[in-house]
């Protein structure tokens, strides 16, 4: 089985498409969460190896969720994603402990593997 991944994003359509493409590329999508709070709860319950985390969530932002995951000692590699242009603030992702950023429309198993191995 491939690497275990949790998708945290409030758009069901994106979660569906992301799951499809990541599963086709050999990832094991173990869960989906639609906001930051349930993302942190699911990550601590499912212990995924990778968390694909949307930057803008209804209850918080991806940076805060990344910090919470790190502070909670969850060892998952966090990859941030967004359909907005966030390239100028990617540095904040690094500070929050994320391993990288992939624009939503460029998501693929190859891009993800390049970041999380």
């Amino acid at each position, binding site marked *: 089985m491939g690497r275990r991944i949790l998708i945290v994003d409030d*758009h069901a*359509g994106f979660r569906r*498409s992301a799951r499809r493409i990541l599963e086709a590329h050999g990832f094991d999508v173990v869960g989906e969460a639609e906001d930051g709070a349930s993302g942190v709860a699911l990550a601590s319950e499912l212990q995924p190896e990778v968390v694909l985390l949307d930057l803008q969530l209804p209850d918080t932002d991806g940076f805060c969720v990344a910090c919470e995951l790190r502070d909670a000692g969850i060892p998952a590699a966090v990859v941030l994603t967004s359909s*907005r242009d966030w390239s100028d603030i990617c540095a904040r992702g690094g500070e929050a402990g994320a391993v990288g950023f992939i624009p939503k429309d460029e998501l693929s198993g190859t891009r993800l593997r390049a970041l999380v191995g």
Partner: protein
Amino acid sequence: MSGALALRRGARWVHHRDVTRPYDALVVSEARTKAIVDSALDCVVTMDSGGRIVEWNPAAERCFGHRGADVIGRELAEVIIPFEMRDAHREGLVRYLATGERRMVGRRIETNAVRADGTEFPVELAITLIDSAGPPLFTGHLRDISERREAEEEVRASRARLVEVADETRRRLERDLHDGAQQRLVGLALDLQLARETVESDPAAARQLLDGAVGGLREAIDELRELARGIHPAVLTTHGLAGALPDLARRCPLDVKLDGLATERLPVAVEATIYFVVSEALTNAAKHSGADAVLVAFDQVDDRVAVEVCDDGSGGASMRAGTGLRGLSDRVSAIGGTFQVRSRHGEGTIIRLELPCEW
């Protein structure tokens, strides 16, 4: 009567008049001055060199709520000057009497004054120095500018609200684009990418993805069309209100009747404002009022167009509740129109706007 007597009498009469002319003239002049001061719309208040009130006209009585008889002889500072400004006033008077230095005299200034009931209000004030042979007198002409200030404040607040609404509209547009069409297109990009990868290994799966992509694209196109219409309907640009409002009425779930809608074009801003107000009013009626029917009536007289949107709903709408109606009112005011809402509980809601349609 002899000629000499007549002459004498005439001479005496002439002589008498000569002696009394300055006195007559003074009486007439004083009477005229008093009439002017008494009928002046502005408050006229005169202070002597000791700072005491010596003149207090009827306008001052009305404005300040003090009768002249009660304040003549009292210190002006104690009667109309706000507490924290009294010392500066007294020092200014002492300085003038000692050095002749005038800081307030001869200028038009805006300051505050106090009414009999203790309330402070803004005034425009001009002080004239009456420098006669004796000690000087100071006459102040004061005008209550509370209403002007309130109107200025309302214009400022209304402008600020319009800017806020414009900002909020842009934020909502970004959100709608981001959450709607953009997410669909992102999903499509991923699905098409997967279809390309699987077209040879699993053509059936690829075809399914492509079918889904076509459906998703149609939905994105519909969403963008709706969004564009919401920003500014193309039919309003091409055909004016006569083209756009029937379309709006058809889309409303209520029974909407348009009455008196003329086909002549109006200025762009007037058409856009009427469209926007009618659109909001119909949305409100459908969402909140429980109405079944709405009448949108137009009336154009000379250079003004009046529009009334009347629903048969529950009423109770208020300019104070929420920002919707206030926003409409601001928008109408911004192009020189008037906006009224009548919405008693149980009697439906009438929104009436009047706009100048020739600039």
